[in-house]
């Protein structure tokens, strides 16, 4: 074995260090050491990658939002297995922004709380009304002065079918 000089195959193979690629020594002014260390270390964090060239003017304001398209289902339907659509006939809920012909998004998994708009099965009919339960009395309220509140009596068969979460209304 010759003395001194280069030994082939010795040392860490290139690319196996903490940077994952070959490295080489450089001269750096002592005053800038910290900055260079910081720069090299940060490389290991994800850096934002811009889709447009900064030098060509302002970056596109959309670059931060490259997320794919919006899915309306995701926005309107939280529980797909429990969500149904129904069509409104009649104007009893006009002042709540619910018009004849609108489509309602109904989530059956939600618990009907007093004050929410619900689909109720009342005496064999499906109806959309505001659910009102206070002081031991249960009422279904229309949102139109032309319709009187429906007081639920013992003889009525009421069952809350689902809770309305959204109205789909064409303009």
């Amino acid at each position, binding site marked *: 074995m010759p003395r001194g000089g280069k030994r082939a195959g010795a040392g860490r193979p290139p690319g196996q260090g903490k940077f994952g690629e070959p490295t080489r020594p450089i001269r750096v002014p002592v005053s800038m050491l910290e900055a260079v260390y910081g720069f090299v270390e940060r490389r290991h964090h994800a850096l934002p990658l811009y889709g447009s060239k900064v030098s060509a003017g302002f970056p596109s304001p959309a670059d931060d939002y490259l997320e794919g398209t919006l899915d309306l289902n995701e926005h309107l339907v939280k*529980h797909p*297995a*429990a969500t149904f659509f129904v*069509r409104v006939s009649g104007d009893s809920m006009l002042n709540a922004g619910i018009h004849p012909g609108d489509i*309602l998004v109904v989530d*059956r998994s939600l618990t009907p709380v007093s004050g929410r708009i619900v*689909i109720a099965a009342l005496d064999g009919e*499906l*109806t*959309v009304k505001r659910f009102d339960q206070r002081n031991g009395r249960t009422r279904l309220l229309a949102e139109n002065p032309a319709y009187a509140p429906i007081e639920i009596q013992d003889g009525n068969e009421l069952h809350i079918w689902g809770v309305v979460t959204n109205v789909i209304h064409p303009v």
Partner: protein
Amino acid sequence: MTAPLFALADCNNFYASCERLFNPALAGRPLIVLSNNDGCVVARSNEAKALGIGMGIPFFQARKLVERHRVAVFSSNYSLYGDISRRVMAVLAGLCPDMEIYSIDEAFLRLDRLPHEPLALAREMRDRVRHWTGIPISIGLAPTKTLAKLANLIAKKSGEGVFQIERPERLHGLLARLPVKEVWGIGRRSAERLQALGIETVEQLRRADPRQIRRHLSVIGERILCELNGTPCLDLEETQSNRQILCSKSFGQRVTTLAPILEAVSNYAARAGERLRRQRLCCGHIHVFLQTGHHDARVYSNALSQGFPTPTSDSRQLIRVAKGLAQRLFLEGYRYQKVGVILMDLAESRRIQDDLFTPRNDNPRLMQALDAINARLGADEVFFAAQGVQRPWRMQSGYRSPRYTTCWNELARVS
């Protein structure tokens, strides 16, 4: 490994429950659902069962009772039932992903690999399915699938809707009252054979000699016996990728000429092709059958198959071959009831190997365009001329309810 614990979740009177979901006026009223073509009774509400309307009887036999008791009658609405089934299964899988969908309204689940107390979990399943989908279900729990089926039967009758069989030997009183035909896998013929051996109840079968059962009902019978005694022989099955696609319906009225048969078979081939492509499959074989009614004065039933040189999912190819086969099957002088198409030898489209010597006639982009248009604008917006326009042969469904959950024009109305 812990001992298995199976649950069978089964929707109560599923089709009838679906019909009631959007029509609360039907609550408490007797209700029946008719088979394809409004032929037979295929589902009954409890009230209809109580009137003595039998399962599977022809509609005309039930007519008197229907009129006298104002029974609500519906044609089957498979768009609705399929969608509600999908929802029920999704809710169940949300609580226990260890699931095998067994039929449109039944699923086996394994509860032993979850940390929850099984009976509490089963009650949660029953309540959540009811609340989220509106469908009442019953759940039977047991150490084997066969016993879970029986537990479900008992759960249905109990009113509570959940029942567990922990040890079958402790239930001998109950099992002694159940006839053997209630056991999963014991059909009418097996029940008759067992009766000949003096075995009439589930309890008698459970205590029978395995060798004797094996002699009369083969290993399958022996396996049932084993399962009845709490030793599991069957595990959850992987949800099968459909090994064949069947598309067939009865004609509205009997058909005696070739033209409507060719139109119908073209329709079924096109429909089957759609289903094939939706699952990204190709088929290697097509099978066409044509038949009269089984009880007709002149009975005829025949079938032919043909293979494709390379597997295909192109509706044009399917229609061409299906028509050719139907033409060969057709004989003058019969009154046909039904024609159908079965696609077999299914394989994933991307695994198909091309044949060097046969050029492929498929046009996947055309099929994609066709499917896309029909998906957006409604089924049959674009169709092949061979499918016909008027389709007078189509089956009757005079009492079908709206497709509340799959068709924008048919949503339920709320006032």
